[in-house]
C-alpha cells in the first residue's frame, strides 16, 4: 500500500504544524524514503500503513519520530568553509577587543544536526584562543532528540570524519574508539546540546555573540523565516554576528539586519536603532 495523496497531505500538515517546515508537492519520494525505516520498526510493511496507523491511533512518540525523520538534514565539517574560517580571522578578534577578559563568549549552533557544526566551531576556537574551553560556551540545538543525543555523545563514524574534517584536526581533537572517533573532553565541555524548535517560542538562552543558523531558513515559508529571524535577534548581543547558509539572506525577509562582508563570506549584524 503506497502513500496516498491524502496520507501525504496529512504528513505535510503534521510536519508544518510541529516544525513549520514546508514539504512541497513532489516530495512524496522523500516522505516514503525517510519514513520506511519507522514503518518497518513498528512491524508495518510500508509508509501508507504507518500513516494510517498514526492517523487512527495518534501516538506522540510515533508523531515525534515522523517529524524528526523529515527534518534531519545532511551536515559536514566546515560546511562551505568560509563562514567558519571567518570566526578566528575576523569575528573572534573583534569580540575579544570589545569584551572583558573574563567575559564568556556565547555561540549558538542552531539546527546543529549531529554536532559537526558545533564541534567545528569548538575546534577553531580551541586552536585560536588559549583557555577556550573555559572562555567559550557553545549552545547546540536541534529539533530532533536523536540528533541532540548524538551531539552530546560527540562520537562520529569513519565516514562522517571523512566529510571535510582536516586530518590534522582529526588527530589533534579526536581519539579512536573502536570504529568511531570520539571528540576530546575539552571540546565536549564547550558544547551544551538541547532540543529546540526554531518555529516555536524559544527557550531562555544567550545572549549570543555569534549565531550559526545555516541551511535552515530555506525550509520555511516567509512568515516563519521572519518570525525566526526576529526571535534569533532577541537572543543576540546588539553587536553580534549571524551566519546564514550560502543560499540564504535576510534581504527581502527582515530589514533589521545589516549585511557585512567577512573574508570571502557574509555575515549579518543587528542594524543599530532598528
Amino acid at each position, binding site marked *: 500500500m503506497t502513500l496516498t495523496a491524502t496520507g501525504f497531505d496529512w504528513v505535510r500538515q503534521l510536519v508544518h504544524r510541529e516544525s513549520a517546515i514546508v514539504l512541497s508537492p513532489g516530495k512524496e519520494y522523500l516522505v516514503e524514503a525517510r519514513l520506511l525505516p519507522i514503518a518497518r520498526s513498528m512491524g508495518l510493511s510500508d509508509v501508507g500503513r504507518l500513516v494510517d496507523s498514526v492517523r487512527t491511533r495518534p501516538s506522540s512518540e510515533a508523531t515525534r519520530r515522523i517529524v524528526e525523520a523529515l527534518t534531519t538534514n545532511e551536515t559536514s565539517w*566546515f560546511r562551505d568553509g568560509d563562514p567558519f574560517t571567518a570566526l578566528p580571522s575576523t569575528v573572534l578578534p573583534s569580540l575579544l577587543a570589545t569584551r572583558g577578559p573574563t567575559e564568556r563568549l556565547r555561540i549558538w549552533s542552531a539546527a546543529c544536526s549531529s554536532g559537526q557544526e558545533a564541534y567545528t566551531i569548538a575546534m577553531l576556537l580551541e586552536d585560536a584562543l588559549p583557555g577556550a574551553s573555559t572562555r567559550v560556551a557553545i549552545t547546540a540545538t536541534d529539533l530532533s532528540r536523536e540528533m541532540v543525543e548524538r551531539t552530546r555523545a560527540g562520537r562520529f563514524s569513519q565516514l562522517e570524519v571523512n566529510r571535510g574534517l582536516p*586530518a590534522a584536526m582529526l588527530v589533534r581533537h579526536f581519539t579512536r574508539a573502536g570504529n568511531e572517533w570520539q571528540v576530546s573532553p575539552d571540546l565536549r565541555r564547550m558544547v551544551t546540546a538541547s532540543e529546540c524548535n526554531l518555529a516555536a517560542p524559544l527557550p531562555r538562552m544567550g545572549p549570543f555573540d555569534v549565531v550559526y543558523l545555516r541551511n535552515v531558513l530555506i525550509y520555511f515559508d516567509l512568515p516563519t523565516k521572519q518570525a525566526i529571524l526576529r526571535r534569533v535577534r532577541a537572543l543576540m548581543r546588539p553587536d553580534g554576528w549571524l551566519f546564514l547558509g550560502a543560499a540564504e539572506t535576510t534581504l527581502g525577509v527582515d530589514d533589521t539586519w545589516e549585511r557585512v562582508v567577512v573574508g570571502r563570506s557574509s555575515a549579518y549584524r543587528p542594524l543599530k536603532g532598528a
Partner: protein
Amino acid sequence: MRALVIDDSRAMRRIVSTALEGFGYETRQAGHGQGALDVLQEGYAPDLCTIDWNMPVMDGLQFVSVVRANPAWRALTLVMVTSESEQGQIVRALAAGAHEYVIKPFTPDALRDKLALLGMLPQGVAL
C-alpha cells in the same frame, strides 16, 4: 588541473580517477610509489597526487618522503587515500608531508570536501 592516482588496486585507481575526472581533473595512474616517481621524472607535472599506503616496490609513505625531499616538487599537493586508519598512521603521514588523509571506504563527496579544504577543486565544481 592534473592528478596522478597511485594505488596498487586497478579497481581503486579507476574509482579515484573517475571521481577526480568528475571534478574536472585530467588523470594519470601508477601502481606503486616507484612507478609514480618514474612518471614525475619523465616530466609529467600534476597538481595533485592521491596515494595509497600499502603498495609493492615503494609504499605511499616512502613516496611522500621522497617527493618532499625534492624542492622541484614542492608545489605538489599530496593526499593519502588509504584503508590505514590508526591515529598514529595519520600523524606519520602528515609529519612526512602529506597535506590530507582520506580513509577508505570513502564517497566522492568526501574526496571533494578534502580537496575543497585544500583549495584544490577546479573552478565551477559545486560544493
